[in-house]
């Protein structure tokens, strides 16, 4: 395989460890992780609670820095970046989808998206993105007037509207019911397909792994397995 045919790595993780001090105890959340994330991929990071998947997401997403090892985003080294540099990284290159949506309750769906596009350089039209996630008729509703699934789709639209290079989704279906969760996954898959956004989903729900290009399974802070799915299942096809 020649380098030119494989998509370039967007993110490179080399020997990353993370240690917390909890009182007297040292907790090794991550131990020597090596990982590459490539443009246009849909990666599912799978693991039980305590496996270190959240810590890995925090480090990849520029919310935290590793104790040891190196994290690169293209030619930026994130592992020793300052708070200011990490903020810029998140602002310009990263989209986040949270388990609990975290929309501003005081803003409508449209305004929640606009809040992000106002500070982005190459933003998409907020209306179009909301239409793309199927909320064209809910633009002027406040979060409290939307269902959980709708709120999560607003959150996805908010994340996608600024055309991020990487979209991190932390248990995106975690607080949704089954059909709504599937609908949200469908939206994520479409974004990956149509916009070519690198999507990283972390979840403990193994069923979701079927829709990934690659599945990274974490266990006790280390990578237990990296599996490549030859064929990606559609969101409709998976069930849990």
């Amino acid at each position, binding site marked *: 395989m020649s380098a030119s045919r494989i998509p370039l790595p967007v993110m490179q993780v080399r020997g990353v460890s993370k240690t917390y001090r909890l009182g007297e105890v040292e907790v090794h959340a991550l131990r020597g992780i090596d990982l590459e994330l490539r443009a246009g991929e849909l990666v599912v990071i799978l693991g039980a609670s305590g496996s270190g998947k959240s810590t890995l997401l925090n480090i990849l997403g520029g919310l935290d820095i590793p104790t040891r090892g190196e994290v690169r985003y293209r030619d930026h080294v994130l592992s020793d970046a300052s708070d200011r540099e990490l903020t810029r990284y998140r602002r310009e290159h990263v989209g986040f989808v949270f388990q609990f949506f975290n929309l501003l309750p005081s803003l409508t769906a449209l*305004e929640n998206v606009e809040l992000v596009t106002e500070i982005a350089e190459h933003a998409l039209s907020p209306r179009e993105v909301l239409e793309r996630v199927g909320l064209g008729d809910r633009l002027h509703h406040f979060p409290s007037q939307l269902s959980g699934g709708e709120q999560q789709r607003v959150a996805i639209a908010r994340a996608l509207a600024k055309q991020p290079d990487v979209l991190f989704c932390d248990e995106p279906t975690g607080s949704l019911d089954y059909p709504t969760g599937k609908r949200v996954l469908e939206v994520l898959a479409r974004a990956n397909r149509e916009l070519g956004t690198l999507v990283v989903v972390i979840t403990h729900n193994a069923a979701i792994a079927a829709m990934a290009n690659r599945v990274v399974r974490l266990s006790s802070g280390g990578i237990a397995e990296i599996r490549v799915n030859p064929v990606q299942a559609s969101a409709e096809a998976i069930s849990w």
Partner: protein
Amino acid sequence: MSRLHRALLRDLWHLRGQVFATALVVSVGVGAFVTMVSTYRSLAAARAEYYSTYRFADVFASLKRAPDSLAVSLRLIPGVSAVQTRVAENVVLSVPGLAEPASARLISLPGGEQGGDSLNRLHLVSGRYPAPQSDDEVVASETFAAANSLAVGSRIGAILNGRWRELRLVGLALSPEYVYEVGPGMVVPDNRRFGVLWMNAEGLATAFSMKGAFDDLCLSLARGASSRDVIDAVDRLLAPYGGLRAYGRADQPSNRFLTDELGEIEVNATYIPAIFLAVAVFLVYTLLARLIAIQRSQIALLKAFGYANLRIGMHYLEFALLIVGLGLAVGLILGGYFGAGLIRVYQQYFHFPVLRYRLGVSLILFATAIALAAAVGGSLTAVRRAIRLPPAEAMRPEPPRSFQAGVLDRAGLMRRLDTVTKAIVRNLARRPWRAALSMLGIGAAVATVVVGRFMFDAVNALMAVHFDSAQREDVTVTFNETRSRGAVTSLRELPGVLRVEPFRVMPALIRAGHREERASVLALRPSDTLRQLVDARRRRIDVPAKGLVLTRKLARMLAVGEGDHVFVEQLDGRRRQFTAAVVRLSDEPVGLSGYMDADALAGLLGEDAPISGALLQVDKSREPALYASLKRTPAVAAVSIRSATLQTIREIMNRSFILMTIVMTGFGIVLVAGVVYNSVRIALSERGNELASLRVLGFTRGEVAQLLLGEQALLTLVAIPVGCALGALICRLLVPAFDRELFRLPFALTGATFGFASLVALGSAGLAACVVGGRIAHLDLIAVLKSRE
């Protein structure tokens, strides 16, 4: 200590920033209350004690001259318990070390003996009373002596009845008649240039050819006697002797000033603490409401464990009581400290033999009751909410805050705003009461600062009218009695005199219907330029050829207006009476007078236009020579110098008004900082997750701060004009308190005052915001990914 109590202390510690801010507001409110009420009580108690111990008289009167035998008739007036006749004269002094001539009130001491049943007894601070046979020994008021560095043994020159004399200070004393030591017609004490001297009756009577006679008297009333009836009887008795109308304590200058000052303290003791305690109630409420919201599940758990509603309610009430109790304790200490300090300030102006600071138990209990009422008032709604919370519901997290399109959205006003501003406006609009109360709290602070600067502006405005438009002379010379116009010539010959405008002041009784006021009628000439009558807009009013101009305040007291007629009774000379039309009202801010054309008045009185004194315009470079001459001009009873008066007023303004400005500004800062700090902390607690998620999305600290602090910035910006208006309103309400016979403060506030108040609000809001804003750096970005709400 029960577990619940331990939790209480932990909560207090956890919320220490807000606990501190709230307690601070309480402590300043309590402190201000205790300071002012204790000062009031200390002054009032010192006055009562002074007046009774030193037998301050109840009724006072001056007259031209009456035989001592009249005292017997005075004593027989029903309701009179004691009478003291005396000789009292205005004299010009030459004080060593003082360039300008000083004025003094020279009063006779009864028979050289002190004690017995004499009224207005002196409190001898040092030295002794004049020896029985002496004719050059005097006791001086301690205040005057101190201001001029005079001591027992010092000598001062004086013109007594036209003759130069050297007087020797043998004692220094205080008198209940001069607690506030101002000369006739003066508004502020000028202790260097006005003093009181006491001399042996014998010596004084000899010097002024008053042997066997008196020209001044005071008397005390029997218990239950009517002051009004006695005054009328005294007036009837004194009328043939040139009586100038008797007056009671209420009109006695020193007592009047003291009473007015006490009234002012009382007003301040009411509205300032009220503002603070209202804000404290609001802060306690918001703090407790938030605490209860955070601890919903904890409350549910306690209820599930079987804790009674009452116990849980008490828990939160205790929380409020502890905060307020902390503020109360600090406030009591502050109040005691500043009260004692304020008493020391008052000691510079009001002179008592003993002015002890008293902080009574009853005041402490009263302040405690008020503070506790504030604590209960502030916690009632929130505590009721905790009690009513059903355990099952409380176990669930608080439902997400719901927003709906509001009036602003429907009106299309929101469309033009950027997204961050929309969020800010909606957050405010969602809790309109909280926003309004926060805004009012900040507004009250702005108002406090405005009120603190009001005296400054008002006195400046008063001085501008008084000294620039109304009284423009450099020196006023008053003769000891009316003179012929020829006296002008000798004044014109004094060194440095550029212009002389003689005037005649006629003491008079002005009557309209059943109302009557004692006032002077000033006779002016059309050519006069130094003394001018002005209207409310500072425009010159010409003295009409016929009829009377009245000071508006005097007209109001007499209930007359332009076109009405008044009855004027001359109180000196031939005691003529005439009716005059009120032609115009004038608006000079100092003094009460009627004004007439000099020739017209002379015609009515059948006089040859005598003069009482003259206004001088002088060459500044020759002032020392002029002052030296005036000190030895025989006929002069009083000299008043404009530049000296101005300087005195400026000094007093600088001393007391700057202190007032500093204190009120401090109050404003505490209020704004308290309100803003608490509001931002609560906003941060309510929306911490929201803000942290924005940080995750790549918002900078600055942008997140904008969202968090924008609300308070907006509230502060709205509060500034509201506070300025509120401050102006309070000042407007205070103006009548300064609508006095001696002076009337105009309603005046400058742009600088509003600007200053605005800057104080912005500065302290900014400071409080910065303190909380620093916490944005510590928002937990990771926790937000996992936590709900």
